């Protein structure tokens, strides 16, 4: 039998070597210098970061066995460090391929740029960028950069000088199939909300309100509850609060088009039922009223979104849109507390948590209201006035398949902003896509395939307009008048 100490050292070397190979293989997918395919800048920075972290990890592993403790009985506990580092790299491994798949041709680049520009007008976020990842699930997902930062920070204890994760870079996963879509990708605004929530540490701010809400609902039961049950309830309420915050943040950031994308992605028109006096039906077990451990019920989320739209005075403009999506929003207002339930009937304190969440909701709205301010402390413009001014004109362009980068109104040429373009386009999509199709021979608005083609066309026209906008507002001589951009006087220039 080999000497015990020698065997220990040898196996430490082998285990470190195996981990070295794994880290090396992950880093090979990190395409910081790739020219083809090309990547947006934030993705390049992410790859560069992974590469540097990989180099630092490999350097550390090269000396791992040599730096072992002198007492063999400690080897076991020293060795387990490798396992922790390995699983830390599992976390990075998840994201590298997802980022590599999302090259510039496969991300909704113009929309992400437009939303990022809008976010940069919020105080404290003027340098923010986002790397986009492709995920398998048909959902949107913000990868908490704090989790990556936290893991790296903790690596710092073993790996000398690990690189710092770019502080202003957020990471958003989108469904791989939706890279060329526009409307569904409005949900990216919600994921940006997660970045904001995390960066401003809003959970800490909401925790006292969560405690008060639970105490109010549970009364004496609060003291009698087990620590684990209270911990679980706190986690539920924190997670629900974050999701609700992100919804409201998205609504303020991009307006009602967010709500319509939400309804479409999650199929919420199924709640509508003309056979009911109320016009909708929430049947037992229907998913739209069910809270999960991580998310509040869809209909409560919509209800809160409508409250914010009313507060921002968007609601009358929305009500005039002739679409059953608007009926879903209206119906959500009539769903009462007793309709909501938790996924698992036997889960401890679930009903108390839902009731507590009702008490907590106004505080979430307050948190959104507090942060939606520009660098001068002025409330962030919802762009409602711009929508009112340009919505009809934009519609006239789109219905003729003309890119509405510049619209002519009151004898002037104007450049409508991105948020106005997105909402006006969504309105046309919901209300009168057939008007666009009627102008073209052999197109049948009753055929899903035809409608789908023209939806894509409408998305492409709108995408081009928001892409143009970022350039047009930098045109020499273009003027901002009352918050609206007017084209330069080209005749005078000639």
């Amino acid at each position, binding site marked *: 039998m080999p000497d015990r100490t020698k065997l220990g050292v040898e196996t430490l070397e082998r285990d470190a070597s195996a981990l070295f190979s794994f880290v090396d293989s992950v880093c090979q997918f990190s395409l910081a210098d790739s020219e083809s395919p090309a990547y947006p800048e934030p993705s390049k920075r992410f790859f560069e970061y992974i590469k540097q972290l990989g180099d630092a990890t490999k350097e550390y592993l090269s000396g791992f066995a040599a730096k072992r*403790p*002198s*007492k063999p*009985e*400690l080897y*076991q*506990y*020293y060795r*387990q*460090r490798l*396992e*922790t580092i390995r*699983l*830390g790299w*599992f*976390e990075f491994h*998840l994201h590298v391929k997802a980022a590599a798949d999302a090259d510039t041709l496969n991300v909704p680049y113009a929309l992400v740029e437009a939303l990022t520009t809008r976010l940069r007008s919020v105080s404290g976020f003027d340098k923010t960028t986002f790397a986009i990842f492709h995920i398998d*699930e048909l*959902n949107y*997902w913000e990868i*908490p950069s704090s*989790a990556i930062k*936290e*893991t790296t920070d*903790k690596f710092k*204890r*073993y790996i000398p000088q690990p690189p710092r994760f770019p502080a202003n870079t957020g990471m958003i*996963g989108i469904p791989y199939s939706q890279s060329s879509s526009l409307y569904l990708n409005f949900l990216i605004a919600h994921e940006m909300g997660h970045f904001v929530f995390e960066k401003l*540490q809003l*959970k*800490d701010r909401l*925790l*006292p309100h*969560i*405690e008060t809400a639970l105490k109010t609902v549970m009364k004496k039961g609060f*003291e009698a509850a087990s*620590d*684990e049950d*209270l*911990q*679980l309830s*706190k*986690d539920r309420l924190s997670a629900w609060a974050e999701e609700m915050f992100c919804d409201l943040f998205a609504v303020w950031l991009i307006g009602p088009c967010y709500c319509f994308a939400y309804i479409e992605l999650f199929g919420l028109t199924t709640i509508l039922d003309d056979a009911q006096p109320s016009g909708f039906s929430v049947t037992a077990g229907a998913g739209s009223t069910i809270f*999960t*451990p*991580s998310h509040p019920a869809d209909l409560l989320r919509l209800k809160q979104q409508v409250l914010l739209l009313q507060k921002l005075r968007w609601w009358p403009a929305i009500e005039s849109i002739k679409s059953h999506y608007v009926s879903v929003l209206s119906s959500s207002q009539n769903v009462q507390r007793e309709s909501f339930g938790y996924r698992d009937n036997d889960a401890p304190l679930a009903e108390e948590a839902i009731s507590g969440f009702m008490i907590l909701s106004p505080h979430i709205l307050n948190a959104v209201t507090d942060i939606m301010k520009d660098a001068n402390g002025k409330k962030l413009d919802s762009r409602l006035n711009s929508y009112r001014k340009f919505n009809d004109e934009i519609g006239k362009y789109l219905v003729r398949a003309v890119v509405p980068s510049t619209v002519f109104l009151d004898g002037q040429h104007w450049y409508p902003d991105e948020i106005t373009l997105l909402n006006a386009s969504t309105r046309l999509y919901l209300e009168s896509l057939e008007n666009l199709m009627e102008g073209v021979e052999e197109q049948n608005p009753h055929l899903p395939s035809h409608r789908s083609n023209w939806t894509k066309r409408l998305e492409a026209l709108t995408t081009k307009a928001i892409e143009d906008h970022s350039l047009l507002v930098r045109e020499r001589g273009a003027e901002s008048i009352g918050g609206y951009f007017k084209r330069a006087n080209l005749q005078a220039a000639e």
Partner: protein
Amino acid sequence: MSPETSQVRSRYLALALDARKVIDALIVFVDTGERKPDLARSLKEALVSLKAVKEKKEIFSPQRNKLAFSEYYEQVRTVHEAFPTTEREQIVGKLQKVIKGSAKVDEQQRDAFDIIKFLSAIESRALYYYRPQP
């Protein structure tokens, strides 16, 4: 993997990494008897977090979590699963003794070794929950 699952899994990783932080500081002490500057801080953070696992008033406090032993339900649950309350209390006592540093060094090292075993069990369990299953 869904975002929900990923989020929960990352809580286990955070727990494992924090347990490892304390283990590493203790390994040096047990091996050489040397008290490196980060030893006292790591042990105090571990003490605060392990105490918080059983104190209700701390659950809603944003400041309390120096280490990820008690921030989320999954972390609290993992610590509870690994050791019953009595053993946790014994470890808290040993942590206090090592922090104080007034006992003989070899006695402190024995206590420190017990703490390593305790934290290693938590780390190992957290890694197990974090690890994807084939």
